């Protein structure tokens, strides 16, 4: 009897685990199948065309792709230096009494859902951007800033973890040679944890590019490519969030599915890069 249960149990766990692989393959397949109409109609022009006009059945993804890249780039530009600062503070500077409460607050900040960041951005950050930089406040710049604040806690926490892998004995030897804290950070901690730190930045980048709610509130969903950062813009997730329930023709749907597919491929690639960077680092550490 127990032999049979044993077999069933191992069988069930195995196939549920394998089902995850099939699920991921299924997601790619379904998105691809639903994109076929748009792929046939536009081909590669889909990603180079700048015009997105549902009423004319003309769909070009370039403004959304451009918006995704620029807003994420802005977010990284602002968040990376701050995250390094916070991580240095948490791993090397903070007195033992502060380390844990500050670290936990940063982790809790990372747990707050992105829709809250978006709402906060809309009511409290949009007016600030409007007053300081001009424009209507709903803009690429606002999206970049809100996104940077949203990814900062995650990035800081992972960067801190990477820095914490540096063995104390290495740091102590450097202190014994008369190094200052900064000497230890730049010559011991950063070189030692480099792979992990870069991995955490790339992972944060992968998350930021697919983030929807933090930016949907403040970006405006306007399909235009403007070098003016205070102008409203759109990104792939923002377009999806705003237009999915409005699509009324099959070509419109198909274009939105192709956008989803592009987003999934981009973030899968970025996250895989980070992941394999991490793995290499972990193997080195152990």
């Amino acid at each position, binding site marked *: 009897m127990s032999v049979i249960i044993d077999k069933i149990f191992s069988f069930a766990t195995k196939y549920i685990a394998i089902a995850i692989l099939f699920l991921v393959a299924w997601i790619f397949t379904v998105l691809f199948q639903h994109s076929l109409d748009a792929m046939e109609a536009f081909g590669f022009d889909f990603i180079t065309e700048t015009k997105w006009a549902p009423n004319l059945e003309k769909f070009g993804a370039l403004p959304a792709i451009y918006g995704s890249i620029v807003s994420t780039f802005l977010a990284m530009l602002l968040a990376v230096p701050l995250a390094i600062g916070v991580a240095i503070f948490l791993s090397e500077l903070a007195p033992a009494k502060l380390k844990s409460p500050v670290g936990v607050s940063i982790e809790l900040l990372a747990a707050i859902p992105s829709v809250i960041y978006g709402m906060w951005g809309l009511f409290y950050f949009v007016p600030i951007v409007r007053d300081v930089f001009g424009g209507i406040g709903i803009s690429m710049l606002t999206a970049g800033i809100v996104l940077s604040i949203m990814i900062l806690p995650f990035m800081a926490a992972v960067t801190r973890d990477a820095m914490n892998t540096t063995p104390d004995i290495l740091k102590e030897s450097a202190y014994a040679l008369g190094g200052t804290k*900064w000497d230890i950070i730049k010559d011991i901690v950063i070189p030692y944890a480099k792979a992990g730190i870069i991995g955490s930045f790339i992972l944060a980048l992968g998350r930021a590019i697919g983030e929807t709610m933090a930016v949907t509130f403040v970006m405006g969903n306007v399909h235009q490519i403007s070098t003016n950062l205070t102008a409203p813009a759109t990104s792939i997730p923002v377009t999806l969030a705003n237009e999915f329930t409005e699509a009324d023709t099959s070509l419109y749907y198909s274009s939105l599915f192709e956008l989803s597919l592009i987003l999934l491929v981009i973030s899968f690639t970025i996250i895989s890069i980070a992941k394999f960077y991490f793995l290499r680092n972990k193997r080195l550490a152990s």
Partner: protein
Amino acid sequence: MTHTQKRIIINKIVMTLSTLSALIGIGFLFWILAILIFNGMDALSWTIFSQEGAPPGYEESGLKHALIGQLMIVGVATLFGVPLGILAGTYLSEYGQKSHLAETIRDISDIMMSAPSIVIGAFVYAIVVTPMGHFSGWAGSIALIIILLPIILRTTDDMLQLVPSTLREAAFALGAPKYKVIMQVVYRGAKAGILTGILLGVARVAGETAPLLFTSFNDNFLSTDMTDPMASLTVTMYNYATSPYEDWQKIGWAAAFILSMFILSLNIIGRLLLFKKKGR
């Protein structure tokens, strides 16, 4: 200026900058928390819990429909996602171990954990909403299950691996079959860790908005029928906050407050559980 003086000055500058960025980071946390508490407390009242949605301008307007909808969507997702995730995680830790297959599942799950959730929404739209012909609570739950699965799977895997193999060997030596060893020894040893994983996973999916936008959609009235479109706190919050009506925006803040407190409590309880375990 000597070389040493220069190094000391640079050191001071960097230390100040780093402390400053920590202060900025924590400053934002307190800013957001303060706004949530201030606006949330201001908007909270008994009617929020006792009344359903109402058109703008009505006094008797609340979030009862969204609270119940949220509990049902997340509850159903937990009910299916957690056992499936635990079983799959059990395979990785107890059967697959370091095999190629297990490592591939781990890698793919790790990537899925950071994959854009709105894409999951599009996928569920294609496989559930389109065949059904309309939005539904089930579709929302299915989207959340897909997001929850890899999280539970990876935490279970990690937590089971922490159980010392001597415990397993002792049970095997007594002649217990593998499933009994797993159920009665390994699960018991990893109980706190698995529970923490569940709490953090549920907290994560409870805050998801993007995958619900076009799966469970929204409903301004109470509905407990999972085959119908269903309100959730997150989507209601999004709709109310972006509306031009001040009373709706206020209710949006109440929703934001309730949701954040729920998610933060789950996170804090989860951490305490692990902490207690470590302390022993």
